[in-house]
């Protein structure tokens, strides 16, 4: 058949590549800002939108979706066109994908620092942006699938299988995890509560790692590692097994984030078993990547791109070995909530994701601009500074994690906790955080070198769409041909392949989540547990807004050390009205599940203004604006109605009387504060500059109401009944 001439859309690849670079440095810089909070907790003191609780979600979102997201699109758009011998199906959809994605990132960068958040980790964006994410993702998915449909190559290469699985699975995960009922334009409540919400969130959260930070990056590995090494992938057979087993098994592993929690035991066991099974496909992929370099290791010595790829694939191997190990309950009991997890995550992001993307950019940019790299020497400098940066980041975090675990669990011979003050652990690991910050600084320095090197490389050059030619595909019957093996047949059926991919990933989610939500015996109700009062709900919304869950858990595991330190362990029925759940995933500060009644109202008042005034050595930043901000009660009815829609049993009377109830409860708290001479406290004096204010109209009162309610329903039910 006669060959057709066409052009690859390289301009869209260029746009995504530079967006990757810009958002990369943004994400790393915010990460570093967050890291320095451990040493200088008050360096943005008083600026709400630069507080730790709001910046940390911005760091994770910008690293995952802005930096890695754009990196994925860069590599996927470049390789898909070349592997399928066609331009992307729709230039318009490519542009919608690019500009829509950047708009989402900008909106995230505005809303998260403003405290507009759903508080679900890596899914913090509020509902209008969620809708935008879904639309832009659909544009990408449709464009990808249609490009596959109109390809000029019979068979679809393994890299594209991974892109397809990413496209359809992320759509499924994102939509189901972000099902929420809007109360206002910037506030919504998850349709799931407590345990259900936790299962769905970590089904999503774990698989954001799986299908956003792993499968598309594996797609990049399967294309760019062979290209850079100038030799084909080690085993195509292994890649088939790797692909199907990985996508099938990965989706099940989410509950390993919830071990020893009140989630059903069968779901936890499932998470552990499938996590262990996950070693095999993960290492299959890693081995396939590394063995591609067999016979070419001399090139690794000379080519810094291959150095990046080798460290990336090795990091993938390390983190995918560590992940299943951490899913053993005995090891998870030690590691969960500690800095060990931070180390584990950063082996993956800094080593695997970022180094693959860095290597890809060094390979891609000179080719896009049809020139040579400006400096190979500086590529090597980037590699070594970045690698040392990773080591200086993760090693101290491992040590910090082990230190935390040991100190939290240690007992004296008389049975009391050896370190009863949580603060002892916090101060013990501060030197580790210092070294971590140095590691992060080095890593950022390496990335700045990359930017400088690439800017110098492209100076004076432009990107033009590359001309190519290929014959159109001759029509072939959909049925298997004689002598055609099954997977070869499947590889030429793009749409069927995509559907089977979705089926493989949907099975795990359905089997885990549907019974958790519907089988009533999974979440036994506790009669004493009641919905929050309107004032407490407003306080909870402030707790969510400030990202308190970033440092404080609300889930006590059934360990002697935790019960001794925080109170009775958590039961599933205690969370039935929690939309969304606030279990957290890390304890920089203590658990707050049973905070209610532990300390006087005045303590919380002072603590929010200046934590060190109440707790020597505290590294919690000051939340001064909570004392000065007026409490907005104007939309409480809308909030309560939305909560009623998702299952919180507020009556019409509760909703219509909400403002009166707020006033009544707030006045009771203020009366208590005044009885304890709040006006003489340094916090009051400094916050209000000596003026007398009506505290019942301030946000702090709502937050105190919420904190004092935590855990009270089950530990002191008669007190909450009086409310």
């Amino acid at each position, binding site marked *: 058949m006669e060959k057709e001439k066409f052009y690859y859309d390289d301009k869209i690849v260029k746009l995504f590549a530079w967006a990757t670079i810009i958002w990369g440095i943004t994400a790393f810089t915010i990460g570093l800002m967050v890291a320095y909070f451990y040493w200088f907790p008050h360096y943005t003191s008083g600026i709400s939108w630069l507080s730790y609780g709001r910046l940390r979600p911005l760091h994770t979102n910008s690293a995952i979706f802005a930096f890695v997201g754009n990196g994925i699109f860069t590599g996927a758009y470049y390789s898909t066109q070349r592997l399928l011998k066609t331009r992307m199906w729709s230039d318009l959809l490519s542009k919608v994908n690019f500009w829509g994605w950047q708009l989402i990132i900008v909106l995230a960068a505005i809303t998260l620092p403003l405290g507009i958040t759903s508080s679900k980790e890596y899914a913090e964006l509020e509902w209008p942006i969620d809708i935008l994410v879904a639309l832009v993702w659909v544009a990408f998915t449709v464009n990808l699938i249609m490009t596959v449909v109109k390809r000029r190559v019979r068979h679809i290469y393994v890299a594209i299988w991974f892109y397809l699985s990413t496209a359809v699975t992320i759509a499924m995960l994102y939509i189901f995890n972000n099902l929420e009922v809007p109360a206002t334009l910037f506030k919504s409540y998850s349709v799931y509560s407590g345990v259900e919400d936790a299962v769905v969130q970590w089904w999503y959260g774990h698989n954001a790692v799986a299908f956003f930070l792993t499968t598309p990056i594996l797609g990049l590995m399967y294309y760019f590692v062979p290209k850079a090494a100038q030799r084909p992938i080690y085993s195509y057979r292994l890649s088939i097994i790797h692909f199907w087993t990985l996508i099938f098994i990965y989706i099940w592993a989410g509950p390993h984030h919830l071990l020893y929690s009140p989630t059903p035991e069968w779901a936890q066991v499932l998470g552990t078993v499938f996590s262990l099974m996950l070693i095999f496909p993960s290492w299959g992929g890693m081995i396939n990547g590394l063995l591609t370099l067999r016979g070419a290791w001399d090139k690794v010595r000379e080519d810094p791109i291959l150095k990046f790829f080798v460290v990336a694939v090795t990091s993938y191997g390390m983190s995918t070995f560590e992940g299943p190990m951490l899913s053993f309950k005995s090891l998870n009991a030690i590691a969960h909530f500690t800095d060990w997890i931070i180390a584990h995550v950063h082996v993956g992001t800094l080593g695997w994701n970022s180094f693959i993307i860095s290597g890809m950019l060094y*390979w891609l940019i000179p080719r896009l601009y049809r020139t040579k790299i400006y400096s190979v020497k500086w590529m090597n400098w980037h590699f070594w500074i970045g690698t040392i940066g990773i080591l200086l980041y993760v090693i101290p975090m491992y040590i910090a994690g082990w230190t935390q675990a040991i100190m939290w669990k240690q007992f004296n011979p008389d049975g009391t906790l050896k370190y009863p003050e949580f603060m002892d652990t916090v101060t013990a690991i501060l030197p580790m955080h210092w070294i971590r910050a140095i590691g992060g600084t080095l890593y950022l320095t390496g990335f700045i070198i990359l930017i400088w090197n690439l800017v110098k490389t492209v100076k004076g050059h432009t990107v033009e769409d590359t001309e190519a030619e290929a014959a159109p595909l001759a029509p072939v019957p959909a049925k298997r041909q004689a002598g055609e*093996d099954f997977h070869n047949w499947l590889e030429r059926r793009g749409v069927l392949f995509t559907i089977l991919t979705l089926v493989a990933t949907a099975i795990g989610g359905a*089997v885990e989540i549907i019974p958790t939500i519907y089988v009533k015996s999974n979440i036994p109700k506790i009669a004493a547990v009641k919905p929050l009062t309107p004032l407490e709900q407003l306080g909870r919304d402030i707790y969510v807004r400030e990202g308190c869950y970033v440092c404080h858990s609300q889930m006590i595991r059934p360990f002697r050390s935790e019960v001794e330190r925080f109170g009775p362990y958590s039961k599933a029925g205690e969370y039935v009205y929690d939309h969304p759940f606030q279990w957290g995933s890390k304890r920089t500060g203590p658990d707050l599940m049973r905070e209610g009644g532990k300390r006087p109202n005045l303590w919380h008042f002072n603590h929010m203004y200046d934590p060190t005034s109440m707790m020597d050595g505290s590294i919690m930043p000051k939340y001064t604006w909570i004392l000065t901000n007026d409490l907005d009660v104007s939309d409480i009815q809308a909030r309560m109605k939305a909560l009623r829609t998702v299952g919180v049993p507020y009556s019409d009377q509760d909703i219509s009387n909400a403002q009166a109830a707020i006033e009544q409860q707030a006045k009771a708290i203020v009366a208590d504060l005044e009885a304890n001479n709040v006006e003489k406290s340094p916090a009051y004096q400094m916050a209000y500059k000596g003026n007398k204010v009506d505290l019942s109209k301030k946000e702090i009162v709502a937050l105190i109401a919420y904190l004092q309610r935590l855990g009270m329903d089950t530990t002191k039910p008669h007190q909450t009944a009086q409310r």
Partner: protein
Amino acid sequence: MLRNIKHYLSTQEGAEMHDLIVTVIFFIIFVVMLYLVWRMPKHRVDELKNMPFNDQNENDYDTTK
């Protein structure tokens, strides 16, 4: 019908059995797949693994020099 499904889902016993069934199905598919992959002809495998190198238009810039 939806109500019946919801009723069944909310009253069913032994959800953990689903996992066992799915795991067994997975292993069966896995073994079948191993067999199929093993039987793939070598020339087809070689052809497929070389797909990234079929792009003649790509400029080649050696970054190591």
